[in-house]
């Protein structure tokens, strides 16, 4: 494996675009446009096609990172973006109403892809809330027969994004 493709997904505003901007070694490709609907109360811009960034791991392995749009109407992009991908990072925004349900929904949305590859869960905005507890995410994964690492991360920090990527790469290498 000298080049690997990783996909980052999650609800609108979870921080997919932020994560890729934080870690990419090249200026990230962004396709954010103005929000014109109720999301504009939360953020001014939203991704409508994809984010793209690159980085190099210690062993010179190249990682291509693709961020999906979060909103459901862009579901067709999810299917396009996962093609050829080797793993998925699901960002779960813990300030939303039901983060556990969000995680389950994204596991379901990408179930075919995950079944062939693997996933890492990143719990974001933990500085704003410490619920639900980490355990509940592991339990929820367990109930679905899944064993994926779960991290509390701040995707604005390069190191936190790197942690998830490293975990995903090792998960894939040893599975």
């Amino acid at each position, binding site marked *: 494996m000298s080049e690997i493709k990783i996909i980052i997904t999650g609800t609108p505003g979870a921080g997919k675009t932020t994560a890729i901007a934080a870690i990419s070694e090249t200026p990230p490709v962004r*396709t954010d446009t103005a929000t*014109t*609907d109720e999301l504009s109360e939360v953020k001014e811009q939203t991704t409508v*096609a994809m984010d793209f960034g690159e980085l190099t791991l210690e062993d010179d392995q190249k990682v291509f990172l693709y961020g999906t*749009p979060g909103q459901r109407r862009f579901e*067709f*992009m999810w299917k396009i973006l996962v093609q050829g991908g080797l793993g998925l990072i699901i960002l779960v925004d813990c300030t939303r109403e039901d983060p556990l349900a969000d995680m389950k929904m994204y596991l379901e949305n990408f179930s075919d892809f995950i079944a062939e590859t693997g996933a890492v869960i990143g719990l974001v905005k933990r500085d704003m809330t410490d619920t639900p507890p980490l355990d509940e995410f592991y339990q929820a994964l367990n109930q679905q027969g899944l064993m994926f690492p779960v991290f509390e991360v701040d995707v604005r920090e390069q190191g936190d994004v790197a942690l998830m990527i490293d975990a995903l790469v090792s998960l894939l290498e040893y599975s």
Partner: protein
Amino acid sequence: MSQVRISENGAQFCQSVFDDMMTQSDAVYGVLISTVDGHDVVKCFKQDMPASKLAAMMSSVLALGETVAIEADQQQCRYVIVENSNGYILTLRLKEKLVLTVIARANANLGMLHSITRSAVEKLAEKLK
């Protein structure tokens, strides 16, 4: 639901512009105005097509076109044209937050489509706030 709504008056004006386009070229069978973030606003389709799905897709396509233009150092993206065995799909920005998409059969003349679309955009941009 989109927050971009146009008045009944505005919608009528759009429809009249769409009608003109279809009269100018009978190859045109669909015109859609949508938002840059992928919601449909007004449309005139002579054939059944999924407007909400197209609205989302056209915002992705246009965003990618605009991004590619920048990456390739070709400045501002004017149109994105998808040329297919059965027709053309032309899309471009209409003011800051809207997108105009024109769908035409293969017998369309691409030069004609350009000019019809350009003049429609001018009329629409002037009228829409």
